[in-house]
Every structure is written in C-alpha cells, then in structure tokens.
C-alpha cells in the first residue's frame, strides 16, 4: 500500500502575528513556520499503518511553504520512506488541492491522509477538494485508520461522544482529526542524517491552475477581551448564577 501524507507549513502560533501594511495578509517575513499540527497527526497515523502492515509512506509538501523542507526531513527521520516537494501550486486551499491532485495523478497513492484542518483552513476544505479532484472516496474528522483485507477501516467521531466505524475500499482520501498515538518524536540526529542523505525529491506542478477566485479585502486582529468574573458562594449559589447568566445571554430557554 502506498500512503501519501499531504502536508502544510503554517505560522508557529506562539509567535506574535503581525499584519502586512495593507492589512490583507499576515506578515510572513519574520515568522517561524512549523508543520500544521493536524498534518503531524496525519503523518503519525500513516506511520502507524506502516508499522502494522509495512505500507510505504511518502510525505508531500509545497516548496512555497516556508520551512517545509524541515517538516519533510523530519517525516523521513520519523520513518517515512520518502518525501516530495512540489514546485508550483498556489497559496489557497483550492490551488493546493489542485497541486496535490496533479502530483497524485503522476504517482498515484492507495491512500491519502492529510490533516482535517489547519489554522488557516478551519473549514477543513483540503481533504474533500482533493478527493473531488481525484474522484475518490473521502472521509473527514477521522480518529483512526487501520488497514483490513485491502480496505481501510476508519473511525469518525462526532460531538456528543458518537462515532462511526466505516470500512471503505481504496483508493481514498482521509482528513485526519487525531492519530491513535501522540505523534512520535524525531531526534535531531536523525533529522540531520536525513538532511545529509538528501531524501527529499522535487517535482514540478503547474502554477495557479485553480485559485478560489476569492480575494481578501481586509484582515482584523481578534478583539481582545480579557474580562473574567469569579463566581463566589456555595455550589448551589454558583449553579444558580451560571444558569442566570446563560438565560441572560439567551443560551438556554425557559
């Protein structure tokens, strides 16, 4: 089985994020970029499948993402069999999906796993768009992928503690919410070795085949509200106060 993990580098959220002077984008100049944490989970899940079945795992990213090479070498250090860096493709999710699809047409995968979302794609569009472009099955918000008799069994979680277990034939695209285990640690020595061995391969794809057609007019920083009210009294008092507050704000009726 060949598993491709589609990856994205995103700004490290511990950094203070600034806007560009025209306020239509964040200022990427001094930002540190790290692997999208859901993609890290996707990689872990792929490696778990590899550990269980001996599948081949390939990490793929876009060369335009800052510091993506770091993430790709780290993937190799963790146990991926290879990594590919795509030259071309645009920044928004539509063109990312197009770029990945173009690559996958050339080097098809049995299973594509990607993070269900990213800090700049909270709608989780990449997995469904990619599946649509590839004409393959798709499941998102998945919390576990296991191979079974040529199919995959995935677990999909919903709010309220409900879950689906689905079995689907391959090929398929999975948007992963959480891996079964905490993503493994890549020792620096191994990352260095991977860099020395130079296991990341470049591939070119066409640029801007399909942008979303949307343009950003203005970005705003989130409003800061740092107001907290401590409720005092015994348990009943506090419960009453909470209820009252919820009623006041129209969150519960009656």
């Amino acid at each position: 089985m060949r598993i491709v993990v589609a990856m994205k580098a995103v700004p490290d959220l511990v950094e203070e994020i600034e806007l560009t002077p025209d306020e239509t984008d964040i200022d990427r100049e001094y930002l540190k970029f790290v692997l999208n944490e859901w993609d890290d989970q996707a990689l872990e899940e792929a490696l778990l499948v590899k550990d269980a079945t001996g599948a081949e795992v390939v990490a793929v990213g876009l060369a335009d993402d800052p510091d993506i090479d770091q993430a790709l070498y780290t993937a190799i250090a963790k146990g991926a069999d290879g990594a590919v860096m795509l030259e071309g493709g645009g920044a928004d999710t539509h063109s990312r999906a197009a770029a990945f699809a173009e690559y996958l047409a050339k080097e098809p995968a049995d299973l594509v796993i990607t993070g269900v979302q990213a800090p700049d794609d909270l709608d989780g569009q990449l997995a469904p768009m990619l599946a649509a472009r590839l004409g393959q099955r798709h499941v998102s918000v998945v919390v576990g992928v296991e191979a079974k008799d040529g199919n995959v069994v995935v677990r999909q979680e919903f709010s309220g503690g409900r879950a689906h277990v689905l079995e689907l034939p391959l090929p398929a695209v999975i948007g992963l919410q959480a891996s079964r285990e905490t993503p493994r640690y890549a020792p620096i020595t191994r990352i260095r070795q991977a860099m020395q061995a130079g296991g990341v391969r470049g591939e070119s794809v066409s640029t801007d085949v399909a942008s979303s057609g949307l343009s950003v007019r203005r970005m705003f920083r989130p409003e800061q509200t740092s107001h907290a009210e401590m409720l005092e009294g015994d348990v009943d008092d506090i419960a009453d106060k909470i209820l009252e507050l919820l009623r006041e704000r129209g969150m519960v009726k009656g």
Partner: protein
Amino acid sequence: MAFTGVLAVEEETREVFMNVGTAGEIIFYVVSTLTIGVFFWGSYRRVKKYRRGRAAFRMANLKKALFANPFQGVRRREDTWSVGAVAANSSVARRDRAAGIAHFFVFWGFITLFIGTVILTIDYDIVRKASKLIVGEEMSFFQGTFYIVYSVILDTMGFTAVLGLAYLAFRRGAIRPKKLDYERAEKPEGGYSRSKIVLGDWVFIGLFAAILATGYFLEAFRIVATGFPSFEVWSPVGWVLGRGFEAVGLSTAAAGTAQIITWWTHAALALTFVGMIPFSKAMHMLLDGVNLLVHDRSSVRHLPAPPPEAEHVGYQELSDFTWKELLDLDACTKCGRCHEVCPARTAGAPLSPRDLILDLRQWADANTGGITLLDHETRPDRTGPLTVDHEAPIAGGVISSRTLWSCTTCMHCVEVCPVGIEHVPTIVQLRRGLVDQGDMDPTLQTALKNLSTQGNSFGKSARMRARWTKGLDFKIKDARKEPVKYLWFVGDFASFDDRLQANSIALARILNAAGVDFGILYEGERNAGNDVRRVGEEGLFEMLADHNIAALESAQFEEIFTTDPHSLNTLRNEYPERGASYKVWHYTELLLDLVESGTIPVRSLGQKVTYHDPCYLGRYNGVTEAPRKLLKALGCELVEMPRNGANSFCCGAGGGRIWMDDSFLEERPSENRIREALGVGVDKFIVSCPKDVTMYSDAVKTTGNEGQMEVRDIVFLVQEALTNKPAEPGDLLERTGV
C-alpha cells in the same frame, strides 16, 4: 616430618608443614595449583569481558593516581582518588566512619596475612629449594628475629581483621541498616528473589572469619603440641589461646592431632576462598582498588559523547560500554549508599542506582558466560537482568524505561559510591537509546519539540526571551551590540516563567544600582542544553550549544555569570569541548564579591534561615561557600539541614525530570526536602536556582505547610538588605503589566 633435620641452625621458627607428611604435602601442592588455576581462569574471563568494552581513556587518571598525586582524596573527596586514598580506605570511611574503620582493619589485616603467606612461600618454596640445588644445603630466613617480628605482626594484624570483621558481621546481622536490605526499587511483575545474594555475602564473611579462626586455633594447637617454646609468646593470640586449651586440660598429644585436623581445615578454607574470588563478592578485593584508581567524577560534569563510530544510537550490546563502565558493574559491593541517597528511590520511583548496576552486571555476566556462584538475583520469568541473546533491549528491557527516566542526574550516587562507580554517564548513554526510539513521556516530547523549534521548553516564541526586561526602568545592554564586562546568561526559567521573572528583575536592579557593567544576549540566547543532554537528546544539545556559542562569539564580554546552575554546569564544563571556553560564575559568587568589596552596601538582616544547595552548583561544581558567605555577610544565621553542601538532597527537577510527570511518586523529593527543613526549625528556605523556587514553593503547598515556610531566592535577601534601595520592583511590575 619434612626437612627439619637439614636446617642449618636450630633457631626460633616453626615448621611449615608440621605433621602434614610428604603425601599430604603433595596433595596440598596439587590442590593449590588447581585452585590457583581456577582463580586465574576466572580472573581471565572477567578481564576478557572488560576488554570487549570500548576505550575509556583513563590511563592518565591511573598514572596520576599512582605517581603524580598519590595522596589525592585522602582527606577530601576530589574528582579522582589515588593509591594513598585506596590504602587509607578514605572512600569507605567517608560518610560511614564505623564501617570505614572496620573495613580498614579487615583490609590491612587481610593484606598483611596475604603478604605473610607470600613471604613464607618465598622462603619455603624458593629460597630453601634453590639453596639446596645450588649450595647443596637448605637455607632459610624464616627463623630467629625475622620469625619473631613476622609472628608478632601477623598475629596482631590478623586480630584487627577479626575485630573489624566481627563489627561488620554484627552490623549486617544485628544492626541491619536499611541500605543493606536488598529490596528492589523496581518490583518486577513476575517476582524476584535476592536470597542468593544475601547468602553470598554471608559465605564471604563466614569463609573469611573461619580462615582467621582456624589460623589462630592452628597456631594455638601447635604451641601446645610443641610445649610452649618461650619465643612463641610473640604470637600472642595463639599463645593466650594455647594457654586456654592447656587450662581446660588439652594434652600435648591431643593438641598434635587437633593441629593436623585444623591444618587441613584451614588449608581447605583458604583454598576455597582463593578459588572463589573471581566468582563472588570477594572479587571486589581485586577490582575495586583498580576502579578507584581510574575513577573520575568529572565524567558526570561533562558527559561523554555517544560512541563515535557506533552504527546505532544508544547502548545495544556489551561492546557499546567502555571497559570502565563494565568494570563499574563488577565493582559494586552492594553497600547501598547510593540506594539510600537516591532521590528517585526515596520518592518511590522504580530506580535505585545500586539495582541498576547489579542488573547490568548480571545481564553482562549472563551474556558472556560469566559465572557468579551466589551473587545473583533469581526470577521465575527470567526477565530483566536474566535476559540473554538480545531477547530484550538493554534500555527499555534489561533496564526498564521507567527506571531510566526516573533519574534526576543529581549525581549523589556517584558522590557517595565508595568504589568509584559512575552511574550517571551510563544512565545517559542508555537514555540516548530511549530517545532514539521515542520511548518517553509525552510531556518530555513536547518540551524537546519546543526546545528544537523555539530554543526554550516553555514553547514560547524565542523572540519573547528578553521580554521580562520590560519590567525595568533602564535598558540592559545588548552584549551583541556593545561591549560589557559580564555577560549574564539568564536561562529559560528566569526568562520565561512568570513566577520567576521577578527574581531576574531584582538581580538586574541590584547590579545596575551597583554600577556593574553587564549585558545579556536578548533573543540570541537559547536554553543552554544541560538537561537536554542529560535527557539523552544529544543532537538537540549540540544544536542548542552551537547556537549559543555562535551568539557568544558575536558578543563582546569578559566573563559570564548565570542565574541557573544547570546552565552554569554546561557552560563551564561542556562548552569548552565545543570550542567556547569562558570564565563562568554563579550569581551568588558575583553578589558575594560585590557585598564583600562594599560595592553593594548592606545592613544586617538578622534572620534565621536554611539554605538548599542545588545539585548542579554544590555537588557538581563545588560552589557551596559563596552562598554561605553571602548569607553571613547579610547577617543571617544559617541553620544547616542534615543534608547540605555536596551531600545536598535533590529537588527532583534535574536531568529533564522537570518536563516529566511526577504525580506517581509517593513523596516528591522536594516534599521530602521541605520536611527536612521544617525539622531544623526555620521558616525561611533560601535557594539559589530559579527552578528551586518553583519546585519548593509547590512542595510547601502540597505538604500543607503554607505559611510555615517561606521559599526565597537569595537575591531577595540581598535586595532586602540594601541600604540604598532602588524603587520597589513590585511597582514597576504593575506599571508595565509584565
């Protein structure tokens, strides 16, 4: 009777093989030769095992210990020991005087008796036989004055050995100090038994005692049988014992019979003992002197790098260990001193440095066909140290990963070990394998990840490192931009931890007011990597160190001082190997200098306090005096806790433990320490390490002693004692909203 008639002069002597007869003598020689063969075979096997280890580069230590500095360590524990210290049993008497004196008696008693036997062999088997061959007649020096002096020395030294041994047996059997019970810290699921080890100890003591006793009985029977020749009074113990036998009516003839029976018993015991040396606890007699001579405590301060040419990371087979590390394993006498002081063991964690060494020893033996007769643990499920042929990895199998992760690298085990074992480097080498396999706490993993992306374990942006300086009403110089005298290496905790930034602010204000020319590296600083290295993440350590070194090289300064003892250790001892040698001070040393020279005028505080020595400051780097002198200069009365100075008890945070879960511990080391402090009747607990402030403030709360004990960094005492105070830092904190 052999040879008596041929002796040239009838002088004071005794017959060597009295009553044994020629056949007996032949039997004795055959059995002795076989025994010596067994001894050398066993010893050869051990040496062969050590030779499978890597180079340890300890020959310079050996030379120093023998020739250049033969009295090193006799009076004070230093990094290395010496032949003088071995002779004086300094390492044994340290911290356990009674046991040390008893051991000294046994040690010298045994050596004297051994030398006595060698002298006798030289006379009997070489001088007499050679002289018979060459000059045709037997000559001997074992007579006259020589014999008398010989007798008196051997008799008394043997007796001191009896006394020493009696005390040691009494201690082991009746006093039963906790450290001598062999209960494991980590209880294997399938059960275990160490009764053979206990038996082995008693066989060792018992054999030795029996050899001494039969020796004296033999002497007494001989004296009775030969009718108390007057010169035999120079064997006083035998003489008195002989008189005793005479008094209870032992006849000369019966004494003769008893003599020959005892002779054979004595010989059999002695030969058994010799043959058993390489296969039992007795091997420590040969190995431990060597281990002490090649010991070097500084290996803990600057850890050895991973094996350079290994194809794998971490220790996976015997040949990954250095010969010193392998020798360490066999050297352990199970004295339990490390077991007793270990903070992990005290806290109920599954680690005892003694067990770790014993397990590795047994594993090494099991995998090299090494045989110990009794000195080993048994387990029904043959796990852990009993595994053979790579059935289980060393790190994570033979020694469980929980055990390895429990170590705080506090170095207390190495400090107290009387036989020069260096546990910590071995533990770190094993941890390197665990890191490579990703076998670690998720919280540790997160910390390492943060350290690799942002250079601090808090996961905060590297650019926020100097943010705490916004709480100051002056700007600290940027040493990368302008020259300063002192470069302050602030460290992670003092920079990022909200609770500790006030310490940094206070220190900065004091130094600024005193006119000290200092600067910091601002966002150029990274975690120094001390604990990262001790976690076993060598690659990350190299990355952090190289980053810091580049930053240091870009800055202009004369000397460094640090607030963090952990950073101090690696900057002082490990950065030089990477090409960065600087003079590195701890802030207590700097403050002391400023107070003593009057640059900082202080008034007397008159407070009663106790002081906690951070492991990495006191034990690792010997800085115990500066903080004490500083307290004195501030007019504080220092009440010492029982464990202080180099014997200080670890707070539990070192070696990366601060990034791991400690909720499973029965009693956190920091809680144990706070209870110790309460016991000396003070309510001010003074520390000089930022991590300690956090660790002990928490411990005061979790032990329910809030209000009973105040944990304070020494810098606040200085601040309180200032006669011309800068504005209260509290005001500033509020003003700037830090």
